């Protein structure tokens, strides 16, 4: 699918949890080709902030030509804070769809594991899958997107403080609930991904796909900012580096070093 940089139009935006915003933006050319697990680069209107903010595609409405993005405001005076002030009708520069995305068509029961702000891409992934979804979400405390996820699979929650679901990590929840699957799809903080990789190895789940994060400048594979270590020599780079924005953000757990 051709990538484009366009001015999207905000359809609606609301806060769905403390510091978590839920934005629908009309961007037909991007929505048309978007796959679960892909992302878009968002650009601020602030002339002092030039780099893109990569945000995963949470949901796509192809008919309407719009995208749903769910993101966290990371602090004061950040780009995400600026996005959070956008209102219906405002424009938002964005580029996409970027990255490879999840292979949603794999047959078998899948564990869809999201941690914190890694949860949003699981919505579109769950929606696109034909087979059984077991959706495990890890939060610090406050939950979000559970209603959306429940439409597409059986949902399990872990919270650090135990306020909802299993107290502990997503792995704790998987073990507590005795969940079994053929496939793992995961997105979240690196420590969580590391734990999942270990768990998959021990549980013998060979189809384990992780969505990674790295700082980006171009988002299209040109600048080599966003690499992760790869186990084998990467074909493009000829070294043990893969580009998260281009070969990723989704990698087989076995091909990358976290």
């Amino acid at each position, binding site marked *: 699918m051709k990538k484009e940089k366009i001015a999207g139009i905000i359809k609606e935006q609301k806060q769905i949890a403390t510091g978590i915003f839920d934005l629908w933006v009309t961007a037909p050319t991007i929505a048309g080709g978007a796959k679960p697990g892909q992302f878009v680069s968002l650009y601020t209107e602030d002339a002092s902030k030039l780099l893109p903010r990569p945000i995963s595609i949470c949901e796509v409405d192809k008919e309407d030509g719009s995208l749903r993005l769910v993101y966290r405001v990371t602090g004061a005076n950040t780009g995400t804070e600026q996005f959070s002030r956008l209102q219906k009708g405002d424009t938002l520069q964005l580029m996409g769809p970027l990255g490879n995305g999840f292979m949603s068509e794999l047959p078998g029961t899948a564990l869809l594991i999201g941690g914190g702000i890694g949860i949003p891409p699981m919505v579109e992934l769950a929606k696109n899958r034909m087979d059984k979804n077991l959706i495990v979400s890890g939060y610090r405390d406050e939950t979000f997107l559970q209603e959306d996820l429940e439409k597409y699979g059986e949902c399990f929650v872990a919270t650090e403080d135990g306020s909802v679901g299993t107290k502990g990590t997503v792995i704790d929840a998987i073990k507590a609930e005795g969940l079994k699957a053929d496939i793992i799809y995961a997105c979240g903080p690196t420590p969580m991904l590391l734990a999942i990789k270990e768990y998959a190895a021990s549980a013998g789940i060979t189809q384990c796909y992780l969505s990674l994060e790295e700082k*980006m400048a171009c988002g299209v594979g040109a600048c080599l900012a966003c690499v992760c270590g790869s186990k084998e020599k990467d074909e493009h780079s000829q070294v043990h*580096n893969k580009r998260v924005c281009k070969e990723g953000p989704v990698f087989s757990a076995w091909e990358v070093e976290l």
Partner: protein
Amino acid sequence: MRSLAVKIAGVELKNPVMTASGTFGSGEEYSEFVDLNKLGAVVTKGVANVPWEGNPTPRIAETYGGMMNAIGLQNPGIDVFIKRDLPFLQQFDTKIIVNVCGRTTEDYLEVVERLGDEQVDLLEINVSCPNVKHGGIAFGQDPACLSEITAKIKKVAKQPIIMKLSPNVTDITEMAKAAEAAGADALSLINTLTGMKIDIHRKSFALANKTGGVSGPAIKPIAVRMVYQVAQATRLPIIGMGGIATPEDGIEFMLAGATGISVGTANFYNPQTTEEVINGLASYLEQYGHESIEEIIGAVK
């Protein structure tokens, strides 16, 4: 039709606008956004004799009106470059400038020799990357080293050579004159300015490499100054860069004395920048009644 064509070291470019090394991959990545046939030249990411891993991540950070990078010249090496990247670029009606990097003089010479029989128009020699710990930076910050490596490369190069200068020096004209005296055919400037960013919450460096090269609009005034100084001090054609994001920026560099202009960081946030600059140059010639873009090179008074 007013002429946008310029000549750099005997090579005629259909217009002065090119891509800054390292910001446009091998050309392929941005070919979805830009018609490469429209560009004066594509300058490739730096290539070495063997593949380089580059630096650990984070490799970039945002700075006020710019960015900082410490990619560390990751590259697939000259073999794959010749087999894969060059043939891709050769499909287009644009000039090809290959950016060459190395850790030792021998590294540079090997790459330059390997490129000798390839369809490449110009070689840009990066002696100024601030992110490589061994070699690299030293060449570009000491006139004697610069002179030596320039002369050695010139001896083996089949294409004209452009020496790319570091701005992290006390006197840029001294470096430019050293390169000129040693046989350089053209000069590129500026490479990035060495900077640092600290994450105050983690009390740690924003880049794994601690320091990185600052680029983007923030550094433009420094780049324009250096281009002007070098244009006054040498007779070599100059490829000017550092923060070019609009046609006006590009014109500013040409008035200061640049024959070619490269767009770097701006590609990242506006992939259409090169085309916009080309169009803007044409309108400017129109507006001020210049027949050819060459009339504005160094025309500041």
